[in-house]
């Protein structure tokens, strides 16, 4: 199948998934007995007040109308209430926080740089370190290096990131006074400070996943190096370096790319935990605060946003996968 067809097929699939996720999220969060209007109407909550809030938020409409408004809000924006008190929520509208009096989209946009800085940096660190040490381990199979890397790796997969983070703070911040123990400085304000504040969070978040990738890469590498085409490559008289990189690593990385796509969701979850450890005001902190104040619009909006983000990222990884492995397109 041609590349255009392949991409079209994947886009169609992605849209179906997005719609399904929106429907399920909506169903779970709005059909459960907890009444969001009740939570937003303040105390004391008189029946008149409640009715007014419900009308304002659109909860008096039948469920299909509500779901439609909800979907339309994402692609076309929406307006809550009418007249002077009306609130507009621009595209893409993931909801409106009546507690913070701002749109969920604005909240997400303001917090996004923090979380993105943590997640992207950590992913880069874990890919480089994880894949690198996995390959090193596979090539020196059975040696002291292999044992050393694998021992660290199994400890790594067993150590929760917050534990690693707290120990890192204890050591690097409180004992050595090398790095700050928390907080965030925007890259635009001071790039060096940005880096300093992110070094520990990156290390913390990358530790566990890097360990997972080291183990995965090692296993894949060992398997691939036993394949027939490796023998062919050697029989051609290629240098060992070329055999390992071009024929071994290239194939061993294919499943790693798949797993990376699947780990993006986990990366977001990991960022939430990391933010709490290093007291950073990112999306995770936003979510946790919203959960504690029962600001359901934020909870739902953010959840949906996170799901969309991950589905989009998975889509990108899928396309990359199609480039890395020529057999994929034939299989569609």
């Amino acid at each position, binding site marked *: 199948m041609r590349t255009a067809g392949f991409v079209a097929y994947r886009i169609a699939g992605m849209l179906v998934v997005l719609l399904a*996720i929106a429907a399920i999220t909506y169903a779970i969060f709005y059909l459960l007995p907890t009444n969001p209007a009740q939570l937003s109407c303040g105390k004391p909550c008189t029946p008149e007040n409640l009715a007014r809030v419900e009308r304002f938020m659109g909860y008096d409409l039948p469920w299909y109308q509500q779901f439609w408004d909800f979907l339309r809000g994402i692609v076309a924006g929406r307006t809550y209430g009418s007249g002077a008190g009306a609130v507009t929520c621009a595209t893409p509208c993931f909801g409106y926080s009546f507690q913070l009096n701002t749109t969920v989209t604005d909240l997400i946009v303001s917090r996004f740089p923090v979380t993105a800085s943590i997640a992207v940096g950590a992913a880069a660190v874990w890919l480089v370190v994880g894949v690198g040490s996995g390959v090193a381990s596979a090539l020196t199979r059975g040696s002291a290096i292999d044992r050393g890397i694998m*021992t660290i790796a199994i400890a790594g997969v067993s150590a929760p990131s917050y534990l690693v983070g707290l120990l890192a703070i204890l050591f690097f911040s409180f004992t050595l006074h090398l790095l700050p123990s928390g907080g965030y400085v925007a890259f635009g304000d001071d790039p060096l400070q940005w880096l300093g504040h992110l070094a520990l969070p990156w290390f913390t978040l990358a530790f566990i996943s890097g360990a997972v990738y080291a183990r995965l890469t090692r296993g894949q590498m060992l398997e691939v190096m036993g394949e027939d085409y490796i023998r062919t490559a050697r029989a051609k008289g290629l240098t060992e370096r070329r055999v390992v990189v071009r024929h071994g690593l290239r194939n061993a990385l294919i499943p790693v790319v798949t797993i990376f796509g699947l780990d993006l969701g986990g990366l977001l979850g990991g960022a939430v935990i990391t933010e709490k450890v290093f007291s950073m005001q990112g999306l995770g902190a936003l979510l946790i605060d919203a959960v504690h104040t029962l600001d359901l619009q934020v909870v739902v909006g953010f959840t949906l946003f996170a799901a969309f983000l991950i589905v989009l990222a998975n889509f990108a990884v899928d396309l990359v996968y199609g480039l890395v492995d020529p057999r994929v397109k034939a299989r569609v």
Partner: protein
Amino acid sequence: MTAIGSARSDAPTGLRRVAGRLRADRWATTGLVVIGLFVLAAVFAGPLTAISGQNPYTYHLDRLDDSGSPLGFGGGISPTHWFGVEPLTGRDLFAIVVFGSRTSLLVSVSATVLAVVVGVLVGITTGFFGGWYDRTLSRVIDVLFGFPSLVFMISLTAIVPTSFPKPLLIILVIGFFGWPSIARVVRGQTLSLRERNFVVASNAMGGGPWHIIAHQVLPNVSATIIVFATISIPSMIGVEAALSFLGVGVPPPTPSWGRTIGDAVTWVQTDPSYLVFPGAALFLVTLAFNVVGDGLRDALDPRRGVVSR
């Protein structure tokens, strides 16, 4: 090179042999012992803490100074408080850790059982029957697999009415997000088993689908299921602890390692042992399960590993 492949891929994988190989694995044996100790501690948490006359609920404010920090060495370690006491409340940390293992193991094992039952059911049936049923569920699995599940779990704990028992909710939520991975593995195995001649033969001789699933497929995926259950327990433990760490897990005063570690964040400079004991317990039990899981996998597949650590 037909003669070189002496490690045969169809080597026996009977449970007895696996157990034999596992026994020969020093690390895995140690891991099993550690797990055993934690299980014993969880089961006999009451009698164990009664030795020093403690429980995880009683406040000992006399053990604290004016700022709420524990008095004495290592967070108040003493003959009565083996791991010291909790800052601000003075509750016995040893009792909290011991009872915490009960929470941790109960939640993770229940969630694993749930995930394994659903995952195996879905995995075997999708792999075996195929068609639209398989295509739809496989897509669901794909989506759930890459899902920001922790974010979803956190959100759900806010939405579900407080009248719903929280520990049960945690188990259900963790189990729900756990089944896709096992379903995927079991489905893959079932797909390849379905093409194997003994399954085709059973079909050809008139065995019905459920006969084939029960007698031909299930016995051949059981080993995978056991390994998978073993390696998913530590990740379940991790998720439960993470939720509690974030303050949306098992509600207080039920002891939980994750919550204690979360509370320790603010005390890490003044009272590190508050972090160290529950942290070490969490790390140890996770490590033990991972090591045993590795050992099991190597024992089942002699081609892998050889030297894995």
